[in-house]
């Protein structure tokens, strides 16, 4: 092990052995099919029960070692998706397959917890105010059978890995450290179980810009060092572009576009993605956006619009869009897909490419 260019010997630190790879490199680390979560809401007396369609038939895969970003307006189901993946919430339908193993059958929930960890947005609320930093990090390994002393030693080592001097920080309480430091502790806590997939749910959104950049760089370094795979949820498009290999755009609980981040940014196919990208503030005064790219609030997810859920706000909407839901269609061979009739050749939309023509 080298530190500051010098080769030094570290005392042996026990780690939880990561759950070993079973599927090989070609097997996606996580494969999600038809993930659905509807929340019942109590309607008026004697009226039918209504449901919020928080996540509706979401499917995607995460390859080993990549970073997948999820973007979308607030309330579009990003965080619900994260919680469903972590099994913190029961899903109504859908399958989650981790490294070729179906969760709940080939892979127990307890084992899954070690494969997959999550960092929450609120760095303060996600640490127990009555535990020291060290105790918080050591909690997970102890739950999985590690003795107290090695778990604490591991906690201290991980503190060093996330850039916090263990001598200074191990015995501090969460209220005694800053927001950026707390989020580093949360990252260390997630890493303590030697996971392969880390879900970062708006993990840097609450930090101020300079700290955000430091934590992002830390995430990149840790990814390289521990061979991690990230699912990065954010509403900050710049951050998503910086860190992600591929990106998923969600609208009202559905995936409307996905693909390599550069493809999506350079050639957004769904009008919602275009609007999102156009809404990004530019630091160049000549390129200031003066008219809002989309107007109004997202429709109520209790009664989502028929057909394409975006048709109520879409400038290109045609009668066809309100009738049937467009499926995700491939736009190229690089995995760029969009759920929009304008992108589906021969769909009947006036702006759709002719059948047989090359999709751009």
């Amino acid at each position, binding site marked *: 092990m080298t530190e500051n260019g010098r080769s030094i010997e570290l005392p042996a630190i026990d780690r939880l052995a990561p759950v070993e790879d079973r599927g090989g490199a070609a097997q996606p680390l996580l494969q999600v099919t038809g993930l659905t979560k509807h929340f019942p809401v109590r309607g008026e007396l004697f009226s039918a029960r209504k449901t919020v369609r928080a996540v509706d038939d979401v499917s995607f895969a995460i390859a080993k070692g990549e970073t997948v970003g999820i973007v979308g307006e607030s309330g579009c189901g990003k965080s619900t998706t994260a919680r469903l993946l972590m099994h913190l919430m029961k899903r109504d339908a859908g399958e989650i397959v981790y490294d070729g193993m179906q969760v709940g059958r080939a892979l127990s929930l307890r084992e899954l917890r070690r494969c997959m960890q999550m960092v929450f947005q609120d760095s303060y609320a996600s640490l127990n105010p009555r535990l020291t930093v060290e105790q918080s990090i050591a909690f*997970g390994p102890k739950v999985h059978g590690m003795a107290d*002393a090695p778990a604490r030693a591991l906690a201290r*080592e991980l503190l060093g890995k996330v850039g916090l001097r263990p001598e200074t920080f191990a015995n501090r309480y969460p209220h005694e450290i800053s927001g950026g430091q707390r989020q580093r502790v949360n990252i260390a806590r997630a890493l303590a179980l030697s996971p392969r997939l880390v879900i970062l749910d708006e993990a840097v959104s609450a930090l101020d810009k300079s700290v955000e950049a430091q934590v992002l760089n830390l995430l990149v370094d840790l990814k390289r060092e521990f061979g991690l795979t990230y699912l990065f949820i954010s509403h900050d498009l710049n951050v998503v572009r910086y860190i992600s290999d591929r990106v998923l755009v969600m609208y009202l609980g559905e995936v409307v576009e996905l693909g390599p981040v550069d493809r999506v940014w350079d050639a957004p196919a769904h009008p919602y993605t275009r609007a999102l990208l156009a809404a990004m503030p530019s630091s160049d005064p000549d390129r200031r956006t003066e008219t809002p790219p989309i107007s109004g609030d997202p429709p109520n997810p209790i009664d989502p619009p028929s057909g394409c859920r975006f048709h109520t706000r879409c400038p290109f909407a045609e009668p066809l869009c309100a009738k049937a839901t467009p499926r995700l269609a491939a736009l190229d061979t690089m995995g760029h897909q969009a759920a929009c009739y304008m992108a589906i050749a021969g769909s009947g939309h006036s702006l759709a490419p002719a059948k047989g023509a090359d999709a751009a």
Partner: protein
Amino acid sequence: MSAISELALAAEPAERPRGYWTTVGRRIVRDKVSMACAGLLALIFLSALCAPWLGLADPYQGSMIHRLRHIGTPHYPLGSDELGRDMLARLIYGGRLSLVVGILPVILAFMFGTSLGLVAGYAGGKVNTAIMRTIDVFYAFPSVLLAIAISGVLGAGIVNSIVALTVVFVPQITRVAESVTTGVRNMDFVEAARASGAGAFTIMRVHMLGNVLGPIFVYATGLISVSMILAAGLSFLGLGTKPPEPEWGLMLNTLRTAIYINPWVAALPGVMIFAVSICFNLLSDGMRSAMDIRN
């Protein structure tokens, strides 16, 4: 070289990690009000415990010619009651029963109520509904009436009145515990603990208990004085302590006839109840702020 030793030190826990409860203990010792209250309580407890060895007068021995003496009368430092019994002896001996009927029901109710509230708050859903609606049934009755009813059904006696008072307090403490638990349960750190694969029991022990005990504690200690007064009420109805047994609540009741003749002496048992309950209250308040290590 220096880098090596520094890293070696870093990997080994250099300083003794101070646990949460050690920190709380150290903070409460520094709090003057709490310590004064703890001292006074210790004095009352010890004197009640050691009453037979303190050289006090016989608390049962009355004298018809020395009734209702004022405070400071020779041989009667705190006066005498309506039957001429020494008040000092009766107050100290009275502490034995009063503290038991005042504190034991609260401790029992604290244990049951906190457990029920934790389970209801953590489990949520149907379990919560089942527990809390059952608790609501008890709320339908005024606590005095409920205590009398239970005591009446179980029969007279100190043990039965303790049971009755416990049943009266469990719903109140459960309600407080449930609402605090529900608040803590939705915090992200509990989600994070679940995400790390911990079971419900471990989460409650490590992550919930320390965060919910404070408010429940303060509420429960406030019930100690209520408990003493309720116990006195039961005694008055012949359901708890029986005369001539010295007990603060009972003494307060019997001395109320002398309130116009010798108000100072008549008020003494009340002063004791007040002192004990305010001390418990202040102590628990100090405890709560010591447990809130954020400030």
